[in-house]
């Protein structure tokens, strides 16, 4: 085996493992969400399929795959087919730039535990998260239904608004790490995680990513109470499943990003790096679920008010203060 083919084999193995782990994790996050929400509501949650209901994701998958794939007669067929993929794929692509462990050495070759270390990794993340808007908007529009259209328009406006505060809250991180590369950002937090220097940016980022993945205080695009299911009201079968899985992949990826930007990524005492990274990521996932069980949905004007009049100015002031601080301590 030559050196380059060994590299390629290692890389493909890494890719396969990452892909498999993320998809499995997303499926089990659905299960975990149902379980934890049940506990919050003093219920037991799914416990029939397999021991403790552990095979429930498999049953869900079979159900979704065997359901009728219904397309409304007046829908825009191609966009209707395309939208779920456009919602799910950017989410999984973002993980390509997240470093999830220290560099390993296998067969005498260094194997960095990141799919690709892009020197504009942070911008790559922002770019893909802005692409994810298309799935919501086009899915809502192509269904040709009132509720879906309303959900799509709401999703569009919400995700554009909160992308701004999300990007601005990451500027101090870049200023502290002096790099766009996520590997460098993690390396810069070897001693102290950035959440210590930037608690405000951390909170703004957390609120913004909650809005980005349309989780419950900000789930206006799919608001069951008012819009039936919002942008995916007309979807069924595995197309709906793709929207659904995309949402949970988004939770994992955004949790991993929050850990990378503010909690020091895979750095941590005692435990191996990969374990630290998973613990931090899953803690964020748990927090999202906990938040879903706790907070009520915002009204639309409150959502826009929070995004434009509170988070964005706060993020800008935070950038200014960080700049001053960095200039004084140079």
């Amino acid at each position, binding site marked *: 085996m030559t050196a380059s083919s060994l590299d390629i084999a290692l890389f493909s193995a890494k890719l396969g493992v990452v892909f498999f782990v993320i998809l499995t994790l997303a499926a089990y996050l659905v299960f975990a969400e149902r379980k*934890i929400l*049940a*506990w*919050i*509501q*003093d*219920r*037991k949650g799914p*416990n029939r399929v397999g021991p403790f209901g552990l095979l429930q994701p498999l049953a869900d998958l079979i159900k979704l795959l065997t359901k009728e794939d219904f397309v409304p007669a007046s829908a825009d067929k191609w966009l209707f087919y395309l939208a779920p993929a456009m919602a799910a794929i950017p989410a999984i692509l973002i993980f390509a730039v997240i470093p999830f462990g220290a560099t390993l050495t296998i067969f005498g070759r260094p194997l960095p535990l990141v799919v690709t270390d892009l020197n504009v990794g942070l911008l790559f993340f922002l770019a893909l998260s802005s692409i994810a808007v298309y799935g919501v908007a086009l899915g809502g529009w192509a269904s040709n239904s009132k509720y879906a259209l309303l959900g799509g328009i709401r999703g569009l406006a919400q995700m554009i608004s909160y992308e701004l505060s999300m990007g601005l809250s990451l500027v101090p991180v870049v200023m502290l790490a002096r790099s766009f590369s996520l590997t460098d950002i993690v390396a810069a937090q070897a001693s102290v995680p950035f959440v210590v220097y930037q608690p405000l940016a951390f909170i703004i980022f957390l609120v913004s990513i909650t809005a980005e993945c349309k989780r419950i205080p900000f789930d206006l695009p799919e608001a069951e109470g008012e819009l039936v299911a919002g942008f995916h009201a007309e979807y069924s079968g595995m197309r709906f499943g793709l929207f659904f899985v995309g949402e949970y992949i988004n939770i994992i990826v955004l949790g991993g990003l929050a850990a990378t930007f503010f909690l020091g990524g895979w750095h941590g005492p005692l435990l191996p790096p990969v374990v630290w990274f998973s613990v931090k990521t899953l803690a964020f996932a748990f927090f999202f679920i*906990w*938040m879903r*069980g*706790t*907070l009520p949905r915002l009204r639309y004007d409150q959502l826009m008010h929070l995004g434009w009049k509170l988070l964005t100015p706060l993020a800008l002031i935070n950038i200014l203060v960080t700049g001053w601080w960095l200039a004084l301590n140079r």
Partner: protein
Amino acid sequence: MFVYIRLTPRSAFSMRIISDIQAILGGFRVTLSHMLRKPVTIQYPEEKRTPYPRYRARIVLTRDPEGGERCVACYLCSAACPVDCISMQSAEQADGRRYAAWFRINFSRCIFCGLCAEACPTLAIQMTPDYEICKRDIMDLVYEKEDLLINGCGKDSSYNFYRQAGIGVARQRGAGQEETPPVDVRTLMP
């Protein structure tokens, strides 16, 4: 022109932020405490809760203490039923005692309101705590008289309608317990 200016003192504003944060964190605390609590779920097919004796579920037809049918086919239950799920056909025995030739309750329509049991003058129709009424075929939910009739008195084991007011069936008119003799209309002449 009326100009409305809302003055918010700075202290009140900061107080509001603090109280808002407290409210949100309090919500998180409550959900966390519920997360650690024991669930109240009853695993139904395996664990069953015992219903109270007066639980209103499946309807039965009871018998009097002598073992005869209580139902006199008066149609009051059928009239009281808001969903019209009770139907019957009255008939009369040779001694004038009425009974139901057939008696049918469609449980696929029954709403278990209990109005039939309230309307029944002879305590024949009663409700039991048997709540597991599920069938694969909807026609199996139509209960005939033989399905409804039980060998027992139900809730009141001493009551017998014809003993209280036996219209010539158990004894002569006016001879029942706590029954006044029938008024002879001819003696009421002024």
